[in-house]
């Protein structure tokens, strides 16, 4: 018995069957691709949340608003103390700079501010707080202390909002995971039923193979190859669809993406997503075929 001859036979039979009855295979590929598009979109959404949290986390700033008559030496002392306590760089922002930023951020509406004679914005100190200094309520304690200084009018930091965002992100991810598990289970059932439909049309072939002495492994191999090929093609199609969708969102809804502070781009590790979809597609195809062909092997 030649292993090479058998391998050639398996591949030839698998591809031959795909050519002979393309319709059932297209249906199988479509159902697999649908599942993989769902997976891709779920991964993409989760990636956006991660990127959003990371980008916001990187921008946590500790801002101290100074009174108009704040003594320069005291402010310098405070600057030194903040650097020492947080390990981050302290940047002093003038009222003019602050107004400039505000005008820029407001866009067209900001033009109304340009004509103002008196700038109501105070001097402030901005500290870019490194991640290490944000933990364990350190910022809260620091904010409390700084607020007590006579020449300070207020302290603002994004930690609260960030903590809430991280919590929302965790909750969304958990909900996504549960939803994905349900969709995945449903998909496996649909894929397996579709493949069973494809195999049902060839039950006669399986029966004859068994009657002339074909082992279960021999009968199953071409179907497994078909399942793997279907999974791979479905992965390619779904990757293309998800990629195209991301590019479309970037080009036509770039503002929305920019609003999420992701630099106008959908954040994704494309090679990784492609590999995951390929692995999942081939795995699903193999599993679906294995389960589907099993019930026809009893001859």
């Amino acid at each position, binding site marked *: *018995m*030649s*292993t*090479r*001859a*058998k391998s*050639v*036979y398996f591949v*030839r039979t698998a591809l031959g069957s795909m050519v*002979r009855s393309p319709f059932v295979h297209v249906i199988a590929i479509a159902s697999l691709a649908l599942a993989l598009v769902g997976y891709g979109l779920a991964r993409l959404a989760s990636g956006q949340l991660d990127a959003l949290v990371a980008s916001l986390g990187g921008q946590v700033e500790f801002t101290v608003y100074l009174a108009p008559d704040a003594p320069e030496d005291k402010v310098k002392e405070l600057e030194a103390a903040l650097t020492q306590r947080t390990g981050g760089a302290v940047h002093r922002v003038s009222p003019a700079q602050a107004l400039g930023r505000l005008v820029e951020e407001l866009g067209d509406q900001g033009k109304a501010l340009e004509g103002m004679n008196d700038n109501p914005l105070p001097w402030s100190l901005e500290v870019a707080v490194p991640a290490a200094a944000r933990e364990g309520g350190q910022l809260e304690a620091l904010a409390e202390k700084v607020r007590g200084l006579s020449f300070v009018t207020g302290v603002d930091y994004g930690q609260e909002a960030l903590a809430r965002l991280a919590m929302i992100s965790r909750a969304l991810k958990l909900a996504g995971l549960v939803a994905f598990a349900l969709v995945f289970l449903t998909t496996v059932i649909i894929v397996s039923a579709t493949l069973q439909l494809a195999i049902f049309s060839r039950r*006669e*072939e399986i*029966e*004859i*193979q*068994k*009657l*002339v*002495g*074909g*082992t*279960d492994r*021999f009968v199953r191999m071409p179907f497994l190859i078909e399942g793997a090929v279907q999974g791979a093609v479905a992965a390619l199609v779904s990757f293309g669809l998800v990629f195209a969708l991301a590019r479309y969102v970037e080009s036509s809804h770039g503002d929305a993406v920019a609003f999420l502070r992701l630099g106008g781009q959908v954040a994704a590790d494309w090679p990784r997503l492609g590999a995951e979809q390929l692995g999942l597609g081939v795995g699903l195809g193999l599993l679906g075929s294995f389960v589907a062909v099993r019930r026809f092997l009893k*001859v």
Partner: protein
Amino acid sequence: MIQMFHVTKSYPGDPPVLTDLNLDIDKAEFVFLTGPSGAGKSTLLKLMFLAERPTRGQILIAGRNIARVRESSVPYLRRNIGVVFQDFKLLPTRTVAENVGFTLDVLGVPRDDVRDKSLKMLRRVGLEHKADVSPLKLSGGEQQRVSLARALVNDPAILLADEPTGNLDPALTVEIMNLLCDVNARGTTVVVATHDASLIARYQKRTLRLEKGSLVADEKGAKAARLMALEA
């Protein structure tokens, strides 16, 4: 070659299909298996090619007890047994040659050899010129010859045929029977299930008669012919 000892086959809730059957078929023997519909002929053949397992008793094929053989060994045992079905069981999506080559594909025979051997076998049954057409384009007799070629291409020790001439006119019946006799003359044990009395009378081979799952007669030559003539 085929021995059965006290073989009983029954399905839950139904009376036994075969009851306490004993028989012994020698190597290179030609045997008719006859009896009315529902007598158990097809079930007996199914037991021989392991499509069914006996409820009780022992079945020895070439000295090996197949009644208790493991499921994973079944395909290997089947490779020594060619089977011809009344409904031919040919694949309409494959050519005639591909249908014949099916048996060799299972064995891992290289593609070119499969083609060569299939054509050789088709020549033997007189259908080489139809090698590349679909079985759907063949007559009933031709389809049965393709089915026979598929069963024989692997040169099995045993050939089982379930009503091989059941759907054929008298001329085609003779054609198929001559092929079976030819195969038998080359040393293959042949078991043919049929309820065609004229066939048994004409060929005068050993005849086993089943009735209600029991072996009621085992006659050879002219006696078998007379037995069938009386029945008819």
